[in-house]
């Protein structure tokens, strides 16, 4: 009774905050949790919960899993705006009280607590790499906490990327694991064995520790180029609208989750192919005759993947970096990204920390031009190409989105 009351209050608060013009993601959850600290666990009871975590791709994968489960024909609760801590999860469930399924993006640090609280059917572990270390936990420590939390949750199935040694080590404590060869583009955080610390032998996507015997587990789903190989061994082209290797990787993970819900790959894949943008990412916008595409990347691994999906020259590339709280106030990570492949391209540099980026590009001998705002970049771009590729970190991306939104 108390839970139901608090649920109503939480939902009402979300409605209020929606009416106030915000997306209502967190306010309802905060108020609801204050009234009933056990609210999230009550809301999660009797639902099939999927928790999605990792350093990169959480929002997109959550969206893809939600799409892949659509053939079930059931309502699905999800925190589609990326509010991924306890209050965000609570709000998402409050807003969809009747949804029997919940697909919830979850902050990496909150996974142990959320596994305990929501009793998930599936936990998805995508990848683990350095990210905003002025406020995020160190990743070896994080992997250990995941490992302990999953060992204590024998009822849950883990869908994990076997190609990421840190993720694989964390997931291997779980009772049931679906291993996915989802690839690993960024390797700078996994040259050493997470179990014993020895330098790993790596050969393609395979990895093994010569000391403690830790090795890449046998996989049942495989991303192979643009093809997915399912557990029966059959190969199917993914043909996604979303660009890039990282999204193909996210899609294969989503297919593995769909399978755990009994959704056949053919049906699930049809839904994945219909997804064209996720919370503004990959959106194409025309501004004064220039086709702008917005790419978001928040850390070195994300930038590496994003640089891979840039449209080819002559399209200019605008790189923008801020260092506000949500971005991490430390720009050191810029030095972990290899920009040399931008040599010979028309590169523009913006954002509040453009000088940090400029010095970085100079060191990689990538010529560039500093710009003060998006329109200056558009003007420069229009002189040489019909389109402009924009790659920005979190708040820089949001600032550009706001600028573009006003002209829509």
């Amino acid at each position: 009774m108390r839970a139901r009351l608090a649920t109503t209050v939480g939902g009402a608060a979300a409605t209020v905050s929606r009416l106030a013009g915000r997306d209502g993601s967190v306010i309802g959850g905060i108020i609801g949790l204050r009234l009933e600290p056990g609210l999230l666990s009550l809301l999660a009871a009797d639902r099939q919960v999927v928790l999605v975590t990792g350093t990169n791709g959480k929002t997109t994968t959550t969206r893809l899993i939600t799409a892949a489960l659509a053939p079930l024909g059931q309502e699905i609760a999800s925190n589609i705006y990326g509010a991924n801590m306890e209050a965000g999860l609570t709000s998402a469930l409050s807003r969809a009280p009747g949804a029997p399924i919940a697909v919830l993006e979850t902050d990496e640090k909150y996974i142990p607590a959320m596994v305990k609280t929501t009793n998930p059917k599936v936990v998805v572990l995508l990848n683990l790499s350095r990210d905003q270390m002025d406020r995020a936990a160190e990743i070896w420590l994080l992997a250990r906490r995941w490992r302990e939390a999953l060992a204590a949750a024998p009822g849950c199935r883990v869908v994990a990327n076997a190609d990421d040694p840190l993720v694989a080590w964390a997931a291997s404590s779980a009772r049931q694991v679906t291993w996915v060869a989802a690839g690993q583009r960024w390797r700078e955080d996994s040259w050493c064995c997470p179990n014993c610390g020895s330098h790993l032998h790596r050969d393609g996507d395979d990895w093994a520790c010569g000391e403690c015997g830790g090795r890449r587990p046998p996989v049942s789903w495989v991303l192979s180029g643009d093809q997915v190989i399912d557990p029966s061994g059959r190969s199917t082209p993914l043909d996604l609208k979303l660009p890039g290797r990282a999204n193909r990787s996210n899609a294969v993970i989503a297919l593995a989750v769909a399978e755990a819900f009994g959704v056949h790959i053919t049906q699930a894949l049809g839904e994945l192919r219909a997804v064209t943008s996720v919370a503004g990412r990959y959106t194409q916008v025309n501004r004064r005759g220039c086709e702008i595409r917005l790419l978001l990347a928040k850390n070195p691994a994300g930038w590496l993947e994003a640089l891979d999906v840039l449209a080819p020259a002559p399209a200019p590339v605008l790189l923008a970096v801020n260092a506000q709280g949500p971005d991490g106030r430390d720009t050191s990570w810029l030095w972990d990204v290899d920009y040399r492949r931008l040599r010979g391209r028309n590169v523009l540099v913006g954002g509040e920390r453009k000088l940090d980026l400029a010095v970085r590009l100079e060191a990689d001998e990538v010529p560039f031009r500093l710009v003060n705002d998006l329109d200056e970049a558009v003007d420069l771009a229009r002189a040489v190409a019909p389109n402009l590729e924009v790659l920005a970190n979190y708040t820089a991306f949001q600032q550009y989105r706001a600028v573009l939104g006003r002209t829509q």
Partner: protein
Amino acid sequence: MTRPLRLVWIYPDLLSTYGDRGNLLVLERRARLRGLPVEVAEVNSNQPVPRDGDIYLMGGGEDLPQTLATRRLQADGGLHEAANRGAVVFAVCAGYQVLGMEFGGADGAQVPGLGLLDIRSGRGERRAVGEIVADVDPALNVPRLTGFENHQGVTRLGPQARPLARTTLGTGNGDGTEGAYAGRVLGTYLHGPALVRNPGLADLLLHWAAGPLPPLPPQAGELAQRLRDERLAAVSPSQ
């Protein structure tokens, strides 16, 4: 021309948490711009540390990798050998602690360090995260340091080490000093690419290794200077 300047990056597989490559790139660039040929060796923890390097670099790392790196460097002996014959060693954050007599390990126990610098580090109460500004020992003739720190270490210097700088903003060693040096072994809590905003410190290391340096070409250091000025102004707007 003498032989190329040899830069050795120690254990990027264990000690390279956040942009540590920046220090290597800055040293390499500032040497090349002056016409000094450079050779770079990136040495992983399963490889022997070359004995004949001129400047050795060590980065930051989490607790467990820090302890593992220390054990391997002890067993290898290469860094000791190089430091004892006067090679330059520059280490940041976890690497700085590794150079010392001991530091706080993952489980709270003290771990013996390499003993190349007379410092002892332990774990502080609070994590120091944020911009740091510090005035360098005048004997080194290096302009004020600007950087970012992110550590929970507290470091005390013994009589054989001198403080690198005195903090005007941030935590550093925790007693108003920041970093330490002895001879040509130098460590700092400025984390990651510490040399990017401190080209003067980069040039000190190059000078130690290669002797008096020819001047940089005009404008080559201009962007770094702008970044440095911007960061210093951002944390002390009155100056």
